[in-house]
């Protein structure tokens, strides 16, 4: 009996120990698996962030080196990969089928065009990418003018508050967005990878990847298909039915790449010098002979569309200060000059510094060029051309004309260079381009005007090239 009792006790004890062990191991397993799940969720999110950041770096690098690959071009971004039909493949930018000029495009990140591996987010999905119409490198649909003052066409809202987090002003509107679609949400069906070696899905149905935000009513999957400001949504926290992650690229980030290149000023000076040579060559080709050095009138400062070459036209202007003209028929009516376009028709024979890339460089920077012409050298002046009172720069010289490059916007002068259709026109004010006397002397009517030139600082950054009374060009 006693024996039996002790036996029972021992059995119970052992079973309890074993049970405890089972419970502890079970709990440990549960804990580890939960930790693992947390860790993997965190690592998914950090993978997404890292991929978005790599994509942004690659896009900025692509834009920065674009002018080196395509001579004279601006710092453009690639078109998205829109589908795999036709001549373009997985990861290639749809450069020649990329919407109308100015139309914002949404598709996959063109990783192959960028030269990088196919970046995926934490859910293993390839990244998506939207690019502003004016910034896309799209063959014939490329913007007629692109420089760091061109504004983006994207607007970023926050799901939780509905507030515009980026894009209240022209300067803050993103020029491009990179979007990570995240895992599948209810209602989304995504095609799996099919072909061997394929990096991203052939499924270009954006609705299956990018989400509709219920709070703001904005869909990240749709763009309007016309020239408009396109809205996208990001969420700061967890929002039901929305798991896109969005990283914007601002025009400032692109602008810094352009301005920080240490060959920027050299190249701009070359261009300005060459443009001044073209103008001089035009004056020297008047049918009146070597004594007739009359030049062309500038174009008005306010234009209907600053992007269009043919707007830079001296039509009926008869003014002596304004934008550098390309179309000069009205001046030619007085001078008899046969060359109707000063810059488009310019050639290295006439202007030694002129080369093939100069015309596209001018096209991208054309709103930055301003011209003062001495009244003695205007189309309406008497021949032979000679100076009574011509232009001077800081009190010295006698110049027939002065060409000015406006350079980057100055914070100190609160310069703003926005334009319709999305913003009020501030390009119509020469004070948003030039500084000090170069601004206040406009409109210049007759007599002596003393322009200003000095090394760039926080309040002045105009670059001047002068044509003397025999139309010889020099920096001044």
């Amino acid at each position: 009996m006693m024996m039996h009792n002790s036996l029972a006790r021992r059995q119970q004890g052992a079973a309890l120990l074993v049970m405890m062990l089972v419970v502890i191991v079970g709990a440990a397993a549960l804990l580890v698996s939960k930790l693992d799940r947390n860790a993997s969720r965190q690592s998914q999110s950090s993978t997404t962030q890292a991929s978005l950041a790599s994509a942004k770096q690659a896009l900025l690098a692509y834009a920065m080196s674009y002018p080196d690959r395509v001579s004279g071009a601006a710092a453009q971004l690639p078109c998205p990969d829109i589908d795999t039909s036709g001549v373009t493949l997985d990861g290639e930018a749809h450069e020649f089928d990329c919407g109308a000029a100015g139309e914002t495009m949404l598709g996959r990140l063109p990783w192959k065009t960028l030269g990088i591996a196919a970046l995926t987010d934490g859910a293993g999905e390839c990244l998506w990418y939207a690019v502003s119409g004016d910034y896309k490198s799209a063959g014939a649909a490329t913007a007629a003018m692109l420089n760091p003052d061109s504004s983006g066409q994207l607007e970023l809202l926050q799901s939780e508050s509905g507030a515009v987090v980026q894009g209240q002003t022209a300067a803050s509107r993103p020029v491009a967005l990179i979007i990570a679609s995240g895992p599948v949400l209810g209602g989304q069906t995504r095609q799996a990878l099919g072909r061997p070696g394929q990096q991203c899905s052939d499924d270009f149905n954006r609705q299956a990847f990018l989400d509709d935000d219920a709070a703001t009513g904005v869909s990240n999957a749709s763009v309007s298909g016309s020239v408009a400001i396109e809205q996208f949504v990001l969420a700061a926290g967890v929002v039901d039915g929305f798991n896109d992650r969005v990283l914007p690229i601002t025009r400032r980030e692109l602008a810094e790449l352009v301005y920080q290149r240490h060959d920027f000023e050299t190249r701009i000076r070359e261009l300005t010098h060459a443009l001044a040579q073209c103008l001089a060559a035009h004056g020297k080709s008047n049918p009146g002979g070597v004594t007739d050095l009359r030049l062309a009138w500038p174009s008005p400062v306010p234009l209907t569309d600053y992007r269009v070459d043919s707007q830079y036209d001296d039509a009926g202007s008869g003014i002596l200060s304004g934008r550098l003209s390309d179309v000069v028929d009205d001046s030619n009516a007085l001078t008899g000059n046969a060359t109707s376009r000063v810059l488009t028709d310019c050639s290295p024979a006439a202007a030694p510094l002129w080369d093939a890339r100069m015309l596209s460089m001018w096209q991208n920077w054309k709103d930055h060029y301003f011209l003062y012409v001495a009244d003695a050298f205007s189309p309406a002046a008497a021949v032979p051309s000679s100076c009574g009172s011509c232009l001077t720069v800081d009190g010295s010289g006698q110049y027939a004309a002065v060409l000015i490059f406006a350079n980057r916007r100055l914070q100190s002068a609160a310069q703003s260079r926005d334009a319709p259709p999305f913003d009020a026109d501030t390009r119509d004010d020469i004070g948003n381009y030039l500084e000090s006397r170069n601004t206040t002397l406009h409109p210049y009517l007759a007599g002596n005007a003393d322009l200003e030139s000095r090394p760039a600082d926080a309040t002045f950054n105009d670059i001047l090239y002068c044509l003397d009374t025999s139309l010889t060009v020099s920096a001044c």
Partner: protein
Amino acid sequence: MLTKFRTGSFSQQGGFTLVELAIVILIMGLILGGLAMPLSTQLDNARIRETRTALQDIDDALQGFAMTNGHLPCPATPASLGFADVSGGGCVAQHGFVPASTLGVSGPRNGDNLLLDAWANPFRYSVSAVDADGDGNWDFTAPGEMRDVSLGVLDPDLTVCSTATGSSATACAGPATTLTDSAPVIVFSMGKDWSTFTSADQQENVGATLAGGPTATSYRVPADNVAVSRRPGEQAGNEFDDIVSWIAGSALYHRMVSAGQLP
């Protein structure tokens, strides 16, 4: 007394274990097995992550080197003990190892002082040997050559394919299998199963050998400008676990321009 003891001992053994113990062992086996499985996967994943991070560090160091020196370093060879192997101004090998000592990258090294991945196998490093102006200097490794050749002309030629099928020594089978055909640099790890490379894709990455270090080890290195990068696979004859990384030309130029080394 004796009987009593024997009886007691007998009933002690029979009354409890056999069934219970079997169940307990079964349960514990299941739990431990369930734990151990993800543990080994996790270990593999951690090694893959570690190697990816190391590759990222190497990419950063290469770009940093280019930002300060204006060119990329030559690959290391077993004989150069972790330094870029340069001879007469040119590189001794186009395909070799990460010159970790030249770059100042830290990490485990082997007996030939080569930088190791998480599986204790050296990282491989290839650099484009293109010579656009035909002056005998490789564009990307000769000092000053990138600037001389100029940004608009530089066109590196290292190629990464998604499969070795149909690839040549200079190109992939076609555009559909080309991941890039213009990388200046490729760095890769041979992955977990580095000692076996039976599939065509893995052989493509290490078609040649390089030896000559103090340990007299003969290492596999790339034989040509074409590498393969694809998703890992275990299917017999089609295994792949190499982790391949390359730098985009534009990314390299971007960093060098911002550092004033170009244009």
